């Protein structure tokens, strides 16, 4: 029997308001083995930790139970404190009486009863704890960044600057991401390309950065500090070492009618193409699905005109296998499809466009060379209506439940830019709420209203009605004037919701990183660990974690880089000592455990054992501590009960069950 100390935290009033902490202390003292119990306002504070340490020393405690918040919050804090007082850190258990008790129950009697039971379960468990020692594993000093948008570029640059090699894997032929499609950026109206392109160049020129464009992550194995990743480098059909980026192949390519992804389908590209003029690398790819040579075997024009002889129709996909210590996900976002919002006539009229399409139209390198014009007839619009929250903040299954966060600001930007460049164009914005929390954001929006005369109407639009004369009749509500408005417009711009890149689910599965129902990656803690995934060694950068604008994305990209650098800076990592172990006397070498082990951590060896005086050589299972991640699959599958998991042993869990059921 251990000498156990129980420490009950008030957490201010978070626990103490609902749980009678004195009662928990009193009940703890009645538990067998408990030689010390006390309560304190904040156990996690310096003073609280000292109380634990003093008790360990003075009462010679062999086990500690802290009744407090979730172990996911402060288990490490209390374990470190115990270690400083000379107790093995794995002799500490947490009874979660905050998240699982005081915060969800109102009745003091009921909550106190439950807290006592949770305390008893932890005491029962700690009685069976054994001191554990963490092993060590090495750290591969190289990082992988998945996604080459502004988030990925910034993270990679920061890691590279700190002196570590970093690879960017980008699915499309060029890095740059969504930001490269934007014309201007809020709230300062900088030209997006002007601030992004230098960063793209920096990334490609940095000696520590390797770019894998037109590439995808195919397989991930391993764990924090030691991931092994297969990257599929898709066949570009152009030799990157020979191509000079002269662009002749693109001029001469006869297959010219392919909708340009970069221009959101508003213009066409050729089958051999670079997505945009400032693409990095400035080496085209052949889109094999649309290339005449690949479809029919005839053509080959690009090869004929290429002075450098860079065209290679026989190029194959290449798999690159590389080891990494840390992985940063920066997969970004796309706009939702608008096929469920036909009341806005997006599919019925060419003059109803999304905001991202407007970015391309406003951009000098875009499909209209920067002239604001209707896509149906090329005429200059005189009346433009913006509709906010299209597909955001929805409780139905048509849209997204969240606020997309960036639309209020970019709509104010669009409205302002249009009024600035074309003062004779009237701009109306239908809004539900204008959300502008951010430095200089509300001031920006107010300028749109006060200086540029943008007409903001509080109310949503019910229907956009194309008229026989080519105009669009916008039927909306004005909730301030309590009127239904019919407004004739030449162009309607929809602020469509954003959603995480659909590929992220596949990537999250490979990384075993948590993902929520909206396909945003989950952070380890919503407030305190916002750029880390709960899976160690995986970090989050940009919109893959939640909607955010460019300044926020860049901040988060830097934060993710710092977390990755912090990991790479270590030579060794302490491994989780809660690993499986097989009892050599019970193991019968049947291989069942090896079959279920996802890490290949179990091998077999012929070993001489002494079974109650009988010496014989047996085939027994052996767990490699460095590979075992402690899931426990083997412990349940083992028919002879030889496998057990340290820290979560059969006896420990049964003791908890017993304590709860009594």
């Amino acid at each position: 029997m251990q000498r156990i100390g129980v420490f009950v935290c008030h957490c201010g009033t978070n626990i103490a308001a609902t749980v009678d902490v004195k009662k928990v202390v009193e009940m703890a003292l009645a538990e067998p083995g408990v030689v010390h119990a006390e309560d304190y306002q904040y156990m996690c504070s310096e003073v609280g930790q000292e109380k634990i340490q003093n008790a360990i020393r003075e009462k010679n405690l062999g086990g500690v139970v802290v009744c407090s918040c979730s172990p996911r919050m402060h288990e490490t804090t209390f374990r470190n404190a115990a270690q400083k007082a000379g107790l093995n850190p794995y002799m500490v258990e947490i009874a979660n009486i905050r998240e699982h008790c005081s915060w969800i129950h109102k009745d003091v009697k009921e909550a106190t009863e439950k807290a006592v039971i949770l305390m008893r379960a932890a005491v029962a468990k700690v009685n069976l704890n054994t001191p554990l020692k963490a092993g060590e594993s090495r750290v591969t000093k190289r990082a992988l960044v998945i996604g080459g948008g502004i988030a990925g570029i910034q993270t990679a640059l920061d890691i590279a600057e700190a002196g570590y090699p970093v690879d960017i894997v980008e699915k499309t032929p060029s890095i740059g991401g969504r930001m490269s499609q934007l014309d201007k950026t809020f709230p300062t109206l900088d030209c997006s390309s002007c601030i992004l392109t230098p960063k793209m160049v920096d990334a490609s020129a940095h000696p520590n950065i390797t770019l894998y464009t037109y590439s995808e992550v195919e397989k991930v194995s391993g764990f924090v500090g030691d991931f092994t990743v297969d990257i599929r480098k898709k066949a570009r059909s152009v030799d990157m070492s020979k191509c000079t980026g002269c662009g002749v192949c693109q001029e001469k390519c006869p297959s010219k009618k392919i909708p340009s992804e970069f221009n959101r389908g508003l213009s066409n590209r050729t089958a051999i193409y670079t997505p945009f003029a400032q693409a990095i690398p400035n080496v085209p790819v052949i889109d094999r699905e649309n290339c005449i040579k690949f479809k029919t075997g005839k053509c080959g024009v690009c090869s004929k005109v290429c002075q450098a002889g860079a065209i290679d129709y026989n190029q194959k996909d290449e798999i690159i296998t590389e080891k990494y210590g840390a992985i940063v996900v920066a997969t970004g976002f796309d706009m939702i499809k608008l096929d469920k919002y036909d009341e806005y006539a997006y599919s019925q009229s060419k003059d109803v466009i999304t905001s991202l399409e407007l970015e391309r139209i406003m951009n000098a390198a875009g499909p209209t060379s920067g002239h604001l014009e209707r896509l149906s007839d090329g005429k200059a619009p005189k009346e433009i209506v913006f509709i906010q929250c299209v597909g955001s903040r929805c409780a139905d299954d048509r849209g997204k439940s969240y606020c997309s966060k960036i639309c209020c600001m970019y709509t104010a930007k669009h409205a302002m830019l249009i009024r600035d460049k074309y003062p004779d164009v009237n701009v109306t914005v239908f809004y539900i709420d204008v959300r502008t929390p951010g430095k200089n954001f509300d001031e920006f929006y107010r300028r749109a209203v006060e200086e540029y005369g943008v007409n903001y109407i509080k109310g949503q639009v019910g229907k956009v009605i194309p008229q026989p004369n080519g105009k669009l009749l916008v039927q909306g509500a004005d909730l301030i004037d309590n009127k239904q408005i019919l407004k004739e417009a030449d162009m309607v711009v929809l602020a469509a919701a954003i959603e995480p890149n659909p590929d992220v689910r596949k990537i999250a599965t490979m990384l075993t990183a948590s993902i929520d129902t909206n396909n945003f990656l989950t952070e380890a803690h919503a407030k305190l660990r916002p750029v880390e995934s709960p899976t160690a060694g995986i970090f989050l950068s940009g919109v893959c974690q939640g909607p955010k604008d460019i300044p926020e994305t860049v901040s988060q990209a830097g934060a993710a880089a710092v977390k990755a650098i912090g990991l790479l800076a270590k030579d060794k990592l302490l491994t989780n000592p809660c690993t499986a172990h097989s009892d050599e006397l019970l193991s019968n070498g049947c291989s069942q455990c090896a079959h279920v082990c996802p890490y290949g951590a179990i091998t077999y060896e012929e070993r001489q054992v002494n079974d109650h005086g009988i010496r014989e050589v047996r085939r027994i299972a052996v767990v490699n501590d460095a590979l075992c991640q402690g899931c426990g699959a083997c412990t349940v599958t083992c028919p002879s009960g030889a496998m057990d998991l340290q820290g979560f042993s059969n006896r420990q869990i049964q003791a908890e069950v017993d304590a709860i059921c009594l």
Partner: protein
Amino acid sequence: MKYSYYPGCTLKNKAQDLDHYARVSAQALGFELEEISEWQCCGGVYPLGTDEIATKLSSVRALNEAKEKGQELVTLCSACHHVIKRVNDDMKHVADIRTKANNYMQLDEPYAGETNVLHFLEVLRDRVGFDVLKEKVTNPLTGKKIGAYYGCLLLRPGKVMAFDNPENPKIMEDFIRAIGAEPVIYPYRNECCGGYISLKDNELAAGMCRKIEDSAAGFGADMLITACPLCMYNLNKNGNEALPVYYFTELLAEALGVKGV
């Protein structure tokens, strides 16, 4: 192929054309509409209240008879289709309504939404196929520019009716193409004509009809088609006389060359 058929009150009286042309067209297309015995009026509007049971029973009776015959239930009138389809959805998904209705009905086997309810247009699209219909057309209505008027009852609520995209439907347009004419797409085709209000508030109904017809005519329609006797009545009474309104079954019969039958 035999379907159970629920004609409804109006098709036996003021809208006999809608019914008659459907029957002769069905024959020409090789399927049969077998009228439900002793059907009762659906009530014309779907009772929205969650506590309304008695008003839903006539639909349940028709649905159950189709179930017992092992047939799908076909409707023509938009209102009947709307009511029966929604009651069927309640019987399938709302336990409270299902229990109460079955308690009242005392059937040998409780009814739980097993019957598949099809609008005649859905039969043409999903069972016959517009491609097959097109082949059977002997008298294509070439050159006619027709605006489909859906109204509100067939399309909404979209999830329950599951008839077509409620904001941008195409089933009637595809039908128009199949009979050889040219569909005219106009934005008011899924807006309400105000039929219900036409009894007491002609002014309001007339305003809505004008919007619909002006829009259709503006986009070049020579005529409208509908599946709803009430829309037909309202558009004729309160709308623009220059734009005639037909039941879609009449044009179907004409295209199939069985109009005179």
